[in-house]
Structures are given as C-alpha cells and as structure tokens.
C-alpha cells in the first residue's frame, strides 16, 4: 500500500513538473522548444507564466513557429536582465513590467534606482515608464520623471500622471515638455496631499 501511495505521488510530481498542458495549443514544431525555454526559466527561478502567455498569444495570432520561439526566448532573456537589475526579491509582476521597460529602452540602472527609492511594488512605475516611452517621451525624460515621483506617489497617482502626459501630447505638447510639466504638477499634488493628511485634525 505504501508503494502504491508513493508511486502515485511520484507520478503526480512528475506530471506537475512536465510541460504545461496549455502548450498543447502550439504546433508540434514549436512546443518542444518553448517547453525547453520554460524549463530553463523555471530552473533559473524566473517567472514562467509570462513566457506561457507570450507563446499562447503567438498561437492565437497564428504566428509562425520561429516568431513564437524568438519572442519567448527574448522575453526570457529580458526577465533575466530584469531580475539582475531589481534583485532576487522582485515579484513576478515586477519582473514582467521591468522586462517590458528594458525592451522599451530603459537602462537597467534606472530600474535599480527605482528599487532603491520605492518601497512599494514597482509594477506600476515601471509600466508608466514603458508607456511614456511608447508615447514618444525620450527614455531619459521618462526615467527622470518616474524616479522623481516613485518615492511618494501612489499607483493611482502615477497612472494619472501618465494620462496627463498623454493628454498633453495629444493636444500638441512636445513629449518631453509634457512629461516635465506633468511631473512637476504631480509632485506638487503629492506634497500637498501629504501635508493635508498631516494637518487633518483627529486623524492618526
């Protein structure tokens, strides 16, 4: 009986470590390579779910096998660089956001600096940085703005900051100027709010 239980457990453990069943949606050429990339990422303690999702995205969009493999491989590499920049304690959402930021052109040093200045999750600051660059803001300007806000701003403040920049760009402002102006405004708003909280009577 003990042998039966042990054999069942071993088999299930092997199944748990086996290829993700969702990868069955990939064609027979792509699946083994993607599975191997995912196994390598798991062995390196990198999050594997983004890799699975990237492969599934390619499958759903009927991309060619070599494009799917290249996309997964590139993302795995980006996740590794993101972990190097943010440290081993970074959460999977942070690593995924950092990988996108690196792909957008953010230097690893900016990611490391963000980790130093912000205690809360870096997912939203990194996403805002990536989105600003995607909106045409130069990487340096976007990095300076996000770094200046990241220490105190809440996630919602950062998202609102990004919207303000995009709105100003849509209205014709140069991206770098729009970013600097919105950052200055947001920093002021954060300080005002912090002061108002301190002066509010009867609250801890």
């Amino acid at each position, binding site marked *: 009986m003990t042998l039966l239980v042990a054999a069942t457990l071993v088999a299930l453990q092997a199944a748990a470590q086996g290829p993700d069943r969702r990868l069955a949606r990939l064609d027979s050429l792509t699946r083994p390579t993607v599975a191997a990339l995912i196994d390598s990422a798991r062995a390196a303690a990198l999050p594997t779910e983004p890799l699975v*999702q990237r492969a*599934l995205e390619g499958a759903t969009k009927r991309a060619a096998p070599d494009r799917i493999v290249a996309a997964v491989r590139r993302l795995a590499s980006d996740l590794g660089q993101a972990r190097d920049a943010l440290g081993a304690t970074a959460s999977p959402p942070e690593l995924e956001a950092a990988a996108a930021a690196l792909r957008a052109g953010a230097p690893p040093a900016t990611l490391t600096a963000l980790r130093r200045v912000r205690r809360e999750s870096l*997912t939203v600051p990194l996403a805002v940085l990536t989105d600003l660059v995607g909106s045409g803001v130069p990487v340096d300007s976007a990095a300076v703005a996000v770094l200046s806000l990241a220490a105190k701003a809440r996630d919602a403040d950062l998202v609102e900051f990004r919207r303000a920049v995009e709105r100003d760009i849509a209205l014709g402002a140069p991206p770098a100027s729009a970013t600097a102006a919105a950052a200055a405004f947001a920093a002021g708003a954060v300080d005002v709010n912090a002061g108002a909280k301190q002066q509010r009577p009867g609250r801890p």
Partner: protein
Amino acid sequence: MFEPDEELIGRVVRQLRQPVTLDAGLDARVMAQIASLPARRSGGAARAAWRWLIAPRTVRLSPLGALAIAAVFAAVVLWRPDRATRPGRGRPASGSASDFGFVVVAPRAATVALVGDFNDWDAGRTPMRRVRQDESVWTAVIPLTPGRYRYGFLVDGVRWLADPAAPAARDDEFGTPSSVVTVGGS
C-alpha cells in the same frame, strides 16, 4: 443423577472451612514484583502523549483510502502559486482582484472577444456583450489583480483590434496590434 441440594451444600461448606496454608515466601515475591514496576512521575499526560506519538503503529488502510490520501497530497503537489490568482492566468497575487471594464466600438461586428494575458489568449473565454442590441459598443468586465496585461479584441474571430483608449504594446512581435493595461495596487 443429581445429589440432593442440602448434601451438596454441606460438602462445599466443609471444603471451604478447611484451613489454607500459604507459602511463607509469598509476601516477599509480591513486594519484589511491585518494586520492579517503573515509578510514576509528574507530567504524566504530556509524557503519555509523547509516548503515543512516537510509538510505532500498524495502520490498516483500504486501497480507496490510500488513493484518497494520495489525491490530497497530489492537490498540494500540483498546486502552483503562480496559477491561482486570476482566471486562466497566474502570477502570485500582489493584491486583491478588482473588476476592470473593457469597452470597444466595433460597428457591424457579429462577435467580439476580449483576449489577453488574463485568459490564456483564449478567444472563447471572454466574449464581449453589446451595450444595446442596435449599437456597436461592446463591453466586458473581468477581475484583475495588480499587474501589467497585454490584450486585444478579436472581431468576428478573424480581425484583431487594439484598444484605442490604452497604450499600445511596444514589444508586439506577432504582427497584430495589442494593448497594455496596468492595474495598480495603491
């Protein structure tokens, strides 16, 4: 076949009245046995519980029971923390899920599906609904935990649309547009 009752009783009484001779060493032997028993100590309940825990036992188990136990172990082994947080996708939860609405205008569309990182890019999992039967506005609401998600709209099963109200995914490597939504936790 049977003796009369009085005669039988009389014989038993006479037998019981016979003097009994005890062995002279009986008392000594009884006391020696008592002395050889382990002494009772304080903390008896805890010690007894510990002895119960460490004593080897034989457990009898039916095959069905063994399989049930194996199933419980399997559930623990197979559970992956990075799969349990949101529909079809999983990263470790870095916050609680909150409902997030998606809206797209797709005139003349017969069907629109919301497809992305949050539903394994499965076009059948999150069909969008028309706001009204005669209008071209389609909506879907799904729970999302904090994180960054890539997604798109699949119109009539063949045409991909990015979300015009959201940032575009820059690392779009498959030749069709995707958008990005970031859900914050604070």
